[in-house]
């Protein structure tokens, strides 16, 4: 056990900080923190810049651009990136499909997809969820039937995040409907979103955003060489991917950014002769959330550090569970900081955007405990895999 960063890690931290705060293009920073949305073009450019600097896919194998960093360095990289207001690389590309292709794809697939996946020349979306499956991912019904050197895909995906911007989708499809278990008979397929028969329908969320979509497949022909790994082994690859996703979701850097901003906002709100941040009841709430954030961040460092075989520790479930809860708690405090201003969503001259967006943002982030494996799913994983509580 030791507390201090080694001189090498401290130098690494300085290098990251210097890069993100001085070298990375200023106009692409802070936008996300200030509540503005980057345009899709900005997002592509941001990741391309990161990739050029070797900072887009550090967790990948070194032969495909990875850095072979320790979990601690991964954490430092993410923290410094977030603290500087730099958008992290698109998780669908770098935490999800990239590692799967790198681990299970053929050399052809790797060469064809990994470079453009790292640079975001290909924007990926995730085709896992289906309307009748929900948390029971493996009960998916989209089919892929082999027809010569193609698969013909029919069915529907839902909750496909940013599908409207995506070039390609990685999808779970059922290739053997007769398989003995629902987890068997699933394959992992890559498909071009411009293929004939693909229709995307946006789903509006409560806050008015369009972030998720339904995607329909009507006799979509997918070349068979876009299958990752073996046919009917897709569930194994999906589990590998979901573990990575869980670790990725414990994005404490983002929560830290939110909390720092929120303190600034509280300081802007007058209360008597002082500000809302002087209100002991509000200050206590900040203190509570800061303590919680500290514990989650420490756990992220501690848990990721303890997994040695490259597969995520099932303890990463607690990062998703507690991290998403903390996100929601921070956004709930944001409503209270906005106070009476939270009651209008209109853009009013006298009311800052952070205040009028506090309720819609809070409502939107109720998704945090639902997507990426709901809190209920995480609790079941902990109960079963860690505590050995099998019904």
């Amino acid at each position, binding site marked *: 056990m030791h507390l201090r960063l080694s001189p090498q890690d401290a130098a690494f931290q300085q290098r990251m900080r210097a890069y993100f705060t001085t070298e990375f293009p200023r106009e692409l920073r802070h936008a996300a923190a200030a509540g503005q949305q980057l345009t899709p073009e900005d997002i592509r450019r941001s990741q391309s810049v990161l990739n050029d600097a070797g900072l887009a896919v550090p967790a990948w194998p070194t032969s495909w651009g990875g850095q072979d960093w320790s979990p601690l360095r991964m954490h430092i990289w993410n923290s410094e990136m977030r603290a500087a207001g730099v958008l992290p690389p698109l998780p669908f590309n770098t935490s999800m499909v990239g590692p799967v292709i790198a681990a299970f794809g053929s050399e052809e697939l790797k060469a064809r997809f990994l470079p453009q996946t790292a640079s975001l020349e290909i924007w990926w979306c995730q085709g896992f*969820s289906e309307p*009748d499956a*929900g*948390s*029971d991912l493996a*009960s998916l019904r989209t089919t892929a039937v082999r027809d010569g050197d193609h698969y013909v895909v029919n069915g529907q995906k*839902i*909750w496909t995040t940013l599908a409207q911007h995506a070039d390609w989708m990685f999808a779970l499809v059922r290739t053997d409907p007769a398989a003995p278990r629902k987890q068997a008979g699933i394959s992992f397929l890559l498909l071009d979103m411009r293929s004939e028969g693909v229709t995307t329908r946006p*789903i*509006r*969320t*409560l*806050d*008015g955003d369009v972030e*998720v979509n339904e995607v329909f497949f009507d006799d979509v022909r997918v070349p068979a060489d876009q299958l990752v790994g073996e046919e009917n082994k897709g569930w194994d690859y999906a589990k590998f991917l979901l573990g990575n996703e869980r670790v990725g979701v414990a994005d404490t850097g983002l929560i830290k950014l939110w909390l720092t901003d929120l303190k600034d906002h509280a300081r*802007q*709100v*007058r*209360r*008597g002769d002082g500000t*809302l941040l002087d*209100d002991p*009841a*509000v200050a206590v709430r900040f203190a509570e959330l800061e303590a919680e954030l500290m514990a989650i961040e420490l756990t992220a460092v501690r848990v990721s550090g303890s997994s040695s075989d490259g597969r995520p520790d099932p303890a990463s479930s607690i990062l998703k569970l507690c991290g998403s809860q903390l996100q929601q708690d921070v956004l709930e405090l944001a*409503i*209270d900081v906005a*106070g*009476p*201003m*939270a*009651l*209008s*969503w*209109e853009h*009013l*001259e*006298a*009311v*800052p955007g952070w205040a*009028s967006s506090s*309720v*819609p943002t*809070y*409502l*939107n982030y*109720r*998704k945090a*405990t*639902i*997507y990426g494996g*709901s*809190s*209920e799913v995480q*609790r079941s994983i902990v109960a079963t895999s860690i505590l050995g509580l099998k019904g």
Partner: protein
Amino acid sequence: MDFTPTDEQHALAQAVSGALRRHGSPASTRGETAAPPAHDAALWRALVDIGVPGLAWPEDDGGVGAGFTDLAVAATEVGRSGMQVPLAETVVAGSLVRALAPDDLRREVLGGLTDGSLLPVPALAEPLRAWSTTTSDVTATSSDQGWTVRGTKAPVRYAPAATHLVVTATTDDQLALFVVAQPSATTEEVDLDDEPATLLAQGETAEVALREALAIGGVVLCAEAVGAMDEALRLTTDYLRTRTQFGRPLASFQALTHRAADMYARLELARSATLFAAMVADEQPLDSDALLRARVVVDSAARLVGQEAVQMHGGIGVTAEHPVGHLTARLTSISRTWGDRRSRLSDLGTRIADHPNVPILR
């Protein structure tokens, strides 16, 4: 003490829910966001036609003279419908006018509210200022021509549709209440640029009246929240019964059904507190602390029921197309209207040493 609704109240509930269904549609069916909607004049007119906005006002003032238990029944149906009307707002504005305005203004406003010709709402919140019922950055000045008020009120729900605003302002370091007629706001921001205003009251009188009016408006919000929670729980239990996951209905997952039971328990406590508050609101002198307590109970239920209803619905819970998230959005706003849980508890806390306990029988 009797909580049983009368036959008349059952009939009123049916009339209100019928009018809502016939004359409006919830945002979810139109696929709209959960943003607080603008005033729907046609929907409001339908409620005026069956007397809802006048229920609480005395017949002498042009009102229906029914009282707050009836108004609560109506508000619960509004909450259940997923639609929004300025009922609580007009109750706050109307209460202040009733308590403080000279006879002619009182009859004009309460009569107009009842017959639908006028829409008075309160304009209290100020930008970048924590909620307060005792201070205001808006200033009022008196001259030979009468009072004028200056400053910004925002956000003011229903401001573009309002015919009268009841505003707080500071005069000589005192809080004062004014009526501003024809505010002509185009957004929920009201910029008062030396607007002529009628003084209602100053100092202690104004503060007491404001506290009471907000407490009474809070009863309407509680009742609306109970309706919204009823509907959110109904949608949730329906969903648990019909949605299957892992080959069996969600209703077979005890982790969910036990949480649904907690939702029900909190809702029933909130219902009791709300019905009680409605009865208390009809009594003089007003026990405004009892109304605050009801809001605290309803707040805590609204938070749990709203959050759990969305969580148990999963992804569709946060979409604009499904009603459940809209109900949660409304519950979120209700709890933050005219103070929040923290401000209400801290207010009650300052008087905690004044009584050994809280009797409910009276």
